[in-house]
């Protein structure tokens, strides 16, 4: 793990593995349960995995509080690293950031992998884009996120439990209202020039898989793949299937530093 200073923001960046470059943007919950998946990504890609400001335990600068800020930060990161033809993979909240980056500039992107991204809401004012987890009992909220057994908080360490609380805090910080989406994002999805691979757990109770279909229709080169037996985090529940899908999709066809 290295810490770099980017536009006045301290950013923790994990770099590991070898192969073509991939920037991986993590989702909102359960960093430690994602660690095995992240390690396996590094078997195929040179993986750049930053920790979002706030989620890292630091207080972000007072003028850094929107998902736009995260998008610009990571566009700066791509410039800073000098990466070309990057596979950009984002899961859930990270997928939202990836979408915000891609509508601004796809210049350095070879492909965009999105695992059940937040960030876009279709439907009217009475329709919920995403399940309001904070209004549900803890156990019901967990069942929205997982198709199978849910994480057992009782066996989490103190540090892991504090991370759970902090992750929720910073998801709220960036995305409480409008809830988990940017109302302006949908109309610019046509600007995503890179090929897009959408992956969605069939039993996602947080972000309905139907959202994946609607997103795919709005982007010029997108396809949706539904992963059975998984909820909102197929990378935790079905890591083999998720990795196999990514390996067979546009994220894996990137040639290192091809410049395209």
């Amino acid at each position, binding site marked *: 793990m290295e810490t770099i200073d980017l536009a006045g923001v301290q950013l923790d960046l994990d770099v590991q593995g070898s192969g073509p470059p991939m920037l991986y943007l993590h989702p909102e919950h359960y960093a430690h349960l994602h660690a095995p998946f992240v390690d396996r990504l590094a078997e195929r890609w040179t993986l750049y995995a930053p920790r979002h400001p706030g989620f890292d335990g630091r207080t972000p600068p*007072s003028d850094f*509080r929107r998902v736009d800020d995260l998008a610009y930060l990571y566009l700066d990161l791509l410039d800073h690293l000098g990466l070309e033809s990057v596979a950009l993979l984002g899961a859930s909240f990270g997928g939202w950031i990836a979408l915000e980056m891609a509508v601004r500039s796809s210049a350095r992107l070879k492909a965009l992998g999105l695992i059940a991204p937040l960030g876009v809401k279709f439907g009217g004012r009475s329709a919920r884009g995403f399940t309001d987890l*904070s*209004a*549900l*009992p*803890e156990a019901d*909220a967990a069942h929205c996120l997982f198709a199978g057994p849910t994480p057992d*908080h*009782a066996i*989490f360490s*103190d540090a892991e*439990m*504090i991370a*759970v*609380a*902090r992750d*929720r*805090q*910073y*998801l*709220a*910080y960036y995305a*409480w*209202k409008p809830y988990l989406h940017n109302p302006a994002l949908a109309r610019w999805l046509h600007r995503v020039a890179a090929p897009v691979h959408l992956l969605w757990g069939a039993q996602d109770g947080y972000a309905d898989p139907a959202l994946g279909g609607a997103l795919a229709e709005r982007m010029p080169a997108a396809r949706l793949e539904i992963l059975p037996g998984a909820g909102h985090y197929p990378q935790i529940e079905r890591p083999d299937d998720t990795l196999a899908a990514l390996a067979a999709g546009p994220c894996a066809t990137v040639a290192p530093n091809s410049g395209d």
Partner: protein
Amino acid sequence: MQVWHFSEMAYHPAWEELGNSLRNVVPSRVYDPVVGADLYHRYLDEWALCDELGINIMVNEHHTTATCATSVCTIPMAILARETKKVRLLCLGMPIANRMDAVRVAEEYAMLDVISRGRVEMGFVKGAPFEVSPANSNPATLMERFWEAHDLILKALTTHDGPFNWEGEHFQYRQVNVWPRPYQTPHPPVWMTVASPGSAEAVGKKGYVIASLNTGYARTPTIFDAYRKGAEAGGHKPTKDRFGYLALVGVGETEEEGRRRAHQILDYSRTTPRAAAQFWFPPGYTANEVTAQRLQNPGPLKIPLRDGGEFTMQTGSVDEFVNAGIAFAGTPDTVFEQIKDFNDHVGGIGHLLMMGQGGHLSHDDTVANLTLFSREVLPRLREL
């Protein structure tokens, strides 16, 4: 010591039907507006009586709940501003981090202050955690919004030479120019509720009145000490009139009668925790260490007793609440001694915020409770 009568205007007829969840997700079909109208008038009558008894008035607000039907604190304040003539009117309070229009808050307080001819005491509160959901306010930025609203409201109430510009993080107005100006100069006194030494110290630095709510023998002294420390750091004198404490009071002609009244009022305390667990820890509202602990070990709210041990808030007895310093109950003599003891224990309180009605306590009992208190206890408290 000044005394204030507080009631949450509970809609208790629905409590039994709603069971263990009285907040946020409860459907309003269980509210009968005809019954509700009678209750509103009844509670207002009890407050109006306070004007004759020499007991000041305190109102608050909660949302989406059968425990408190005051969803807009300035509405009873407005009625009482005209209906009463002498006593002071405390709104404790206005949840300014959950109010999206801070200038409107300044307007409401200013208008109330003028109508009441300068009897308003202006409370600003963080609001309970379960208030976040009804307001849909961002819990992760709640306190920065609170202080920005505070700064803006005070500037709006004290600026008298035309519009000013405000472009903050949470509030933006280009022409702030509040009419009327408040009756009191420079503005009505400011109160804030505190629940921890940290928040007490912050309010102490400002020199405002603090209200510590039901914090009892165990927690109140450290909160008051933190206030004194903050006040000294801020160059303010932490005089007794800076310290408010909220407790439940049941007084009767006999011990049994006073304790029975307290027992009924205590249903306020017993119903307060009856909110679904997920509404207690909005993300970022509480320190992550505390949230983490509660997520891992969810359990009923416990209250520390004076001499060690603890009891469950939702089922506590009169004895337990009295022992903890949260209720004062019995004859006027007993109640006076209990209040005096508590007052001495915490180093002096200037304001007793007395919940003189709560739960199923009837109108007649409430009137008797307030009247007996004002006749037999209040004069003796003035000496403290």
